[in-house]
């Protein structure tokens, strides 16, 4: 493999002989240990960072591979463009954010610490120009005396118009970290559900112990781990469990768990949210460790896990100490140094200094020495070596300093030395190329706080521990503030067994594994004051002096602090900075840390790709497609479809010679008016209403009466909402004494069904009536035009009497079709023509359309779409969606007379309110432009002819328009104040949006056959 060389690996025995400084970049794995680590030295992987080709091993993260290659500088900070390196080894990383991949797969702000290395990985640094080393915007550092917290609230106000044109564009360009792809994401995402009794989050000592205990009881367990493998801190810190090395115990435990059929182990799966009803959200990184997902594979999978109980063993996060220069590349968390050394066999420096205020930090010195590395000094303000490390210190001649690190010497490539001020006040400089820092550990309480539980301050460990957890959740191990390995194992076991028992699994959970009880003594140290920038929030460049400035200006509440300084609002959500920030605020305001409080923890725990939340519901699959029963027939005829809710409806059927939609639609209209046409109207909502009280029920939901409707007849009905406003309309037929067939508009089908069920189940449970939705069960066609009866006769069994006497207007009954299918036939008309609607079982929908064409051939039958349907209803003055707009009353629609005075019905009382019965309401009228050439447009407003447009003269608007081929001009319906009194009045149609202003006449809305002769013929 070209580019890979095994020259000069870091040796466990000869580390000090290596000559490698900052220029080691590019030297192949100059900082790699010869042995050890959970990496596969037989599987070298080539990768590229900022164009530089390097090599790592399988098992590496991008961060560990960069460290192994001696790379320190990997990023620039948000505001000051300070050089930054790798600080942590986990998802809490604030600094080492890179752009992964390229083109449409470019991912900004990816943590190098969680990105698995793969062969061919391409990453680059972000937020720098022209290069990471020579970043022009580092000039911001010079302006930093001005660029303090909240500076932008105090300036950029003059002159006012410069904000959008000058200041803001500059700020916007400077802000942001990485560049997003800006192209459609080519990858796929999946969304799935899982159910279990006990969900265990985290697979460190506590999590494994919990999973084992719960699994042994027989409970269904899901164990999720964000890392690529189980083990948590065991992978970095080792230790001894049940007399075995931790690694061995880990193997045995994993094997036992894997053998259990009731335990599901999910690695690369990060739990990020806790929602109601025991619903947890997790993201599985299915293919982020390969260049491109395989075909038919997803990039990531969103898991919604429903668990009766959960044990959250999410561990703890080590916190930094705030001191000048603490952001230099090479300043790392002490535990991260252990991870890189032990797990990844990568030594972050040749001379590593350690700054710790607690016993745990000392383990880093031990780990470095065990791996053959060199510890420059250990700085501990407490002034003594913990008992456990005294022997080690003595044997290795460890340099131990009582004091604090007060400054970092170094440059763009990182730490070159540290300045230590002893407890005796003396200052000295120590040469080092890496500083491991431990300010103590914060239990990872985030998940416990997502339901707004507040964590509780624990003085012993100087940290917050979980307070009230979401229902069903238990925290265990370090996440709860139990820091020793033995305690983590016991606590996890107890929590796992208890969770299983809560789910009804009481079988023997076995005994907990045993381990030692390492001491964890800490003397809190939050800040070392001194000259120079001391960072609290590394990504957002919030310094200690920003925090105290916020305090001086009265932004004292932690939430004000966060919002004013942007502390904790970066991509790491303050995992390494929040507690330090509020400790400094507490000190500045003279309050205790618990008095100062914490900000609200918000999901997701770690950022999640938007694509994962959408899954496959994107682009054309955003929402389902509902297809009418004759859809495929219509598509084959070349119909143009329109979206109506989720439905695709045939809008018109273009013919080869037609030059535009208007020509097609006008042809279809004239074909119906002069001959016969048909249209699939199956999208109308259909409800079967049955029962002895069906008529009474309908009387109560419609404003007009239905109990009086004769069997075999149909009637137009209007429904109100309880507030007296029109809800929906449709035709309802009585098929038998106790059987009605109700139709709704397409748009309101679902809403009306829900409403009817409410009336039946909640308001009038005593009525004997049942409802079933039959929308999808029936294919329904409107057949309209003077030759309708001819066509139907060709379609129906000859025995069916379709004459005006045998099947009068508004008749409704079953008929037998030629071939034996039973259909329902309704003599109703929306077009104003002689018309029927015919229903057949939906599976015959496509065949019905074909048969209508065949049977109608002698009459030149013409299929028509929704557009022609709409033209004819406007010509006929029927109201539809644009008029039933949720603010109109029955009277507004000209249907006030339908309201029965003899019965209660939904909406009756409220419809009588003064403002709904006022004489100056806007009511439905017809609108006819004076200039017959003029195209009328919906949404234009109606102004009295001699008035100027203004709020007081705005008297209504055009609701629906069509080009009427029957009248050979544009016509419309409108809602106009006192409209019915104004027939004949010429008004001004004002449409400033489209620069139009013209005159029109207000008229009756019925433009076609006002006497209704044709539909009765």
């Amino acid at each position: 493999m070209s580019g890979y060389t095994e020259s000069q690996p870091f040796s466990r025995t000869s580390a000090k002989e290596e000559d490698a400084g900052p220029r080691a970049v590019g030297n192949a794995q100059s900082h790699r240990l010869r042995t050890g680590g959970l990496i596969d030295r037989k599987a070298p992987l080539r990768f590229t960072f900022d164009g530089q080709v390097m090599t790592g091993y399988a098992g590496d993260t991008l961060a560990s591979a960069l460290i192994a290659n001696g790379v320190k500088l990997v990023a620039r900070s948000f505001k000051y463009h300070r050089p930054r390196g790798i600080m942590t080894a986990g998802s809490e990383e604030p600094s080492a954010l890179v752009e992964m991949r390229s083109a449409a797969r470019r991912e900004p702000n990816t943590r190098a610490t969680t990105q698995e290395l793969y062969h061919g990985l391409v990453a680059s640094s972000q937020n720098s120009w022209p290069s990471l080393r020579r970043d022009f915007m580092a000039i911001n550092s010079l302006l930093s005396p001005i660029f303090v917290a909240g500076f932008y609230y105090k300036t950029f106000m003059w002159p006012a118009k410069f904000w959008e044109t000058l200041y803001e564009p500059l700020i916007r360009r400077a802000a942001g970290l990485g560049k997003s792809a800006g192209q459609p994401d080519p990858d796929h995402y999946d969304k799935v559900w899982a159910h279990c009794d006990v969900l265990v989050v985290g697979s460190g000592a506590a999590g494994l112990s919990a999973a084992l205990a719960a699994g042994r009881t027989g409970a269904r367990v899901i164990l999720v781990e964000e890392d690529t493998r189980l083990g948590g801190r065991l992978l970095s810190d080792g230790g001894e469990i049940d007399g075995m090395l931790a690694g061995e115990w880990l193997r045995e435990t994993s094997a036992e768990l894997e053998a259990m059929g009731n335990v599901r182990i999910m690695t690369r799966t990060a739990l990020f949210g806790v929602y109601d009803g025991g619903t947890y959200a997790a993201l599985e990184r299915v293919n982020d460790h390969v260049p491109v997902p395989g075909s038919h594979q997803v990039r990531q999978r969103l898991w919604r896990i429903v668990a009766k109980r959960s044990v959250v063993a999410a561990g703890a996060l080590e916190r930094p100490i705030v001191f000048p220069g603490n952001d230099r590349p090479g300043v790392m968390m002490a535990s991260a140094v252990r991870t890189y050394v032990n797990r990844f066999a990568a030594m972050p420096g040749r001379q590593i200094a350690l700054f710790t205020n607690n016993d745990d930090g000392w383990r880093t010195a031990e780990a470095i020495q065990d791996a053959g590395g060199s510890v420059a000094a250990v700085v501990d303000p407490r002034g003594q070596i913990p008992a456990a490390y005294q022997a080690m210190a003595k044997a290795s001649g460890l340099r131990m300093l009582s004091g604090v690190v007060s400054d970092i010497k170094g440059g763009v490539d990182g730490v070159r030395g540290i300045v230590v001020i002893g407890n005796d006040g003396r200052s000295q400089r120590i040469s080092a190329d890496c500083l491991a820092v431990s300010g103590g550990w914060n239990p990872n309480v985030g998940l416990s706080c997502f339901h707004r539980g507040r964590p509780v301050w624990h003085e012993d460990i100087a940290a917050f521990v979980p307070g009230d957890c979401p229902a069903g959740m238990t925290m265990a191990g370090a996440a709860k503030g139990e820091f020793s390995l033995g305690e983590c194992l016991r606590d996890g076991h107890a929590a796992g067994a208890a969770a299983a028992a809560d789910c009804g699994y009481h079988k023997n959970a076995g005994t907990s594994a045993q381990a030692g009880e390492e001491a964890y003594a800490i003397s809190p140290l939050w800040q070392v004051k001194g000259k120079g920038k001391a960072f609290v929030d590394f990504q957002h460049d919030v310094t200690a002096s920003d925090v105290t400035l916020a305090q001086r200006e009265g932004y004292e509440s932690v939430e004000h602090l966060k919002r004013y300084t942007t502390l904790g609002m970066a991509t790491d959500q303050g995992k390494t900075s929040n507690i330090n920030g509020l400790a400094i605020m507490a000190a500045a305001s003279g309050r205790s840390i618990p008095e100062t409080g914490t900000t609200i923890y918000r999901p997701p725990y770690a950022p999640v790709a938007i694509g994962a939340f959408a899954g496959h519901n994107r682009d054309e699959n955003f929402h389902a497609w509902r297809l009418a029963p004759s859809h495929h027939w219509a598509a084959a005829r070349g119909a143009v479809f329109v979206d109506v809710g989720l439905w695709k409806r045939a809008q018109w059927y273009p013919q080869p010679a037609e030059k535009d939609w208007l020509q097609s639609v006008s042809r279809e209209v004239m074909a119906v008016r002069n001959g016969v046409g048909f249209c699939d109207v199956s999208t109308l909502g259909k409800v079967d209403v049955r029962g002895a009280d069906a008529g009474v029920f309908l009387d109560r939901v419609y404003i007009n009466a239905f109990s009086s409707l004769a069997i075999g007849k149909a009637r137009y009905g209007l429904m109100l909402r309880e507030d007296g406003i029109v809800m929906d309309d449709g035709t309802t037929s009585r098929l038998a004494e106790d059987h009605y067939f109700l139709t709704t508009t397409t748009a309101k089908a679902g809403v009306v069904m829900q409403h009817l069920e409410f009336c039946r189940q909640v308001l009038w449970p005593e009525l004997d009536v049942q409802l079933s939705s039959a929308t999808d069960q029936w294919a329904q066609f409107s057949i309209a035009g003077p030759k309708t009866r001819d066509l139907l006769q060709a379609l129906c069994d000859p025995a069916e009497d379709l004459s005006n006497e045998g099947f009068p207007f508004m008749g409704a009954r079953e008929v037998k079709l030629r071939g034996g299918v039973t259909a329902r036939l309704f003599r109703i008309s929306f077009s104003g023509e002689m018309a029927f609607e015919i229903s057949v079982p939906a599976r015959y929908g496509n065949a019905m359309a074909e048969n209508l064409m065949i049977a109608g051939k002698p009459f030149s039958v013409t299929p028509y779409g929704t557009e022609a349907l709409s033209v004819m209803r406007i010509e006929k003055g029927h109201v539809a969606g644009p008029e039933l707009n949720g603010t109109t009353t029955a009277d507004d629609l000209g249907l006030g007379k339908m309201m029965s005075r003899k019965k209660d019905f939904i909406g009756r009382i409220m419809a009588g309110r003064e403002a709904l019965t006022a004489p100056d309401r806007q009511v439905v009228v017809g609108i006819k432009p004076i200039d017959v050439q003029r195209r009328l447009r919906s949404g234009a407003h109606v102004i009295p002819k001699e008035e100027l447009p203004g709020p007081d003269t705005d008297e209504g608007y055009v609701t629906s328009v069509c080009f009427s081929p029957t009248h050979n001009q544009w016509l419309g319906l409108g809602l106009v104040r006192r409209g019915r009194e104004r027939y004949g009045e010429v008004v001004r149609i004002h449409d400033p949006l489209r620069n139009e202003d013209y005159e029109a006449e207000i008229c009756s809305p019925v433009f076609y056959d006002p006497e209704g002769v044709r539909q009765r013929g």
Partner: protein
Amino acid sequence: MRIACPYCGEREVGEFSYLGDASPKRPHYTIDDGTDPVVLEEAFNEYVYLRDNVAGTMREYWYHGGGCRSWLIAERSTLTHEFKSVQAAPGAGAAKVTLQGE
């Protein structure tokens, strides 16, 4: 959020739609019984518009539109979203069977 439908079992909230407070009751009246229309309007105004809007446990209507189409009455905390009980409305399910059970 998950709702234990008495007919279907526990289901995800996405299957349900929400109407709101179940405490307002639709005023009952008979036509031309001499009730002052103003009194009736007041009663309906209260029913249609006014809400206690409690911060605590509330009885409320949910509709299992994505399942059995039953109207349910749930007791749920508006502070924690926790469901305390879920019952079918009196006429839910097969009307006659349910009525017999009462």
